């Protein structure tokens, strides 16, 4: 087996050594503070006493079960990069901000049309916000190695980012 061959023994490791949850969250908040839009989110966290927790999940995910509680989840065998963690946190905090502003998901029994309309609008707003934060951080020399834009593309937002950059150039 060559060095380039993916090694199946990886999956049997008991999770990768990682910083503590508190340190990961504090570092992400610190990084967000370097972006004007990220700072809005961190202000929102401190003013509204939003609780941020890290959970272990098979796939990377975020979750907002209550308006003042957000989760960022990832697999301990395959941890997300610091830049992805920051962008995931920005996205779920933006969702919490939407909830706080009264922009909530429709009731479960609401018509499908309403679900589509509201959920799409919320999603668009969230992705636009993540693009803004990523670009603001990407423009700073100290975060060059974080490659925020590449990470956003890997998260599946390449088309949204291209549209966002086009709009920014035209404005």
């Amino acid at each position: 087996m060559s060095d380039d061959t993916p090694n199946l023994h990886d999956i049997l490791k008991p999770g990768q050594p990682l910083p503590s949850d508190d340190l990961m969250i504090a570092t992400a908040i610190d990084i967000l503070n370097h972006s004007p839009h990220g700072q809005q989110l961190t202000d929102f966290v401190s003013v509204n006493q939003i609780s941020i927790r890290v959970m272990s999940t098979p796939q990377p995910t975020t979750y907002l079960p209550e308006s003042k509680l957000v989760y960022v989840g990832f697999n301990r065998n395959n941890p997300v990069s610091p830049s992805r963690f920051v962008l995931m946190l920005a996205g779920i905090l933006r969702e919490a901000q939407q909830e706080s502003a009264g922009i909530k998901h429709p009731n479960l029994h609401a018509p499908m049309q309403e679900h589509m309309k509201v959920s799409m609008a919320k999603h668009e707003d969230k992705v636009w916000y993540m693009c803004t934060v990523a670009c603001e951080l990407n423009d700073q020399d100290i975060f060059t190695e974080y490659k925020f834009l590449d990470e956003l593309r890997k998260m599946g937002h390449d088309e949204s980012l291209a549209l966002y950059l086009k709009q920014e150039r035209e404005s």
Partner: protein
Amino acid sequence: MTNGNLAAADRVYMQPTWTRLVREQAHKVLDKLSGHKDAVVFSKEATEVAWRNLPFYSHYKLYRLVNYATMPTFSMMYLSNDEEFITVDGTAGPIYTVNEKDPIRLNEMNVVPYLDFFFSNVQGSEGDVFLIKDPRKMPMLDSLSEGQQQSVISSFKPLSVSMDTVQHNFKVSGTLYYGGGLLSSTIIVAHDGKLSFQDQSLLLTGIHFPYSPYEQMWLEG
């Protein structure tokens, strides 16, 4: 083990057997879970709780909690004997723990379903592992170019299962998708459900799927 037996073994696990709990039973599960200090929060109003049997355990079942009030929906899996709930967190630890608590019973019919269950819930540093039984039925095969699809099909080594009666383990040889490539390997499954890999060799590289192969198939059914 013949192809017919393998197909039967596949049905042991893959048939859609999720059983949805009625509201009162679901609330009991959520109450039990909320008693844990690190429990992930699920609302009683918007969460569906379902379970399915696993053919290699006597007492533990797989529970699926889905919160429909988020977009996309948020789900978590737990292994439980209805008293204790163990979070399926993407590492081997929770599965090995249950293998000890409810001693796993493996045989030629359920060892492949066990591997399917294991790989669908445990990732490596390169992402998902997928045991390929029929390359033509591989999830998202059509997302690859025509040439790559042909390479996958021609590189494929059929699955074979044998039992080592001396060592009391199973040897499952076949083709796996992992880390953007196809590998052939022999998976040793010990009597306690612990896995090890022998004779790994790279068959094909540059195979990248847009999503996890488990993202859809696992939640459906």
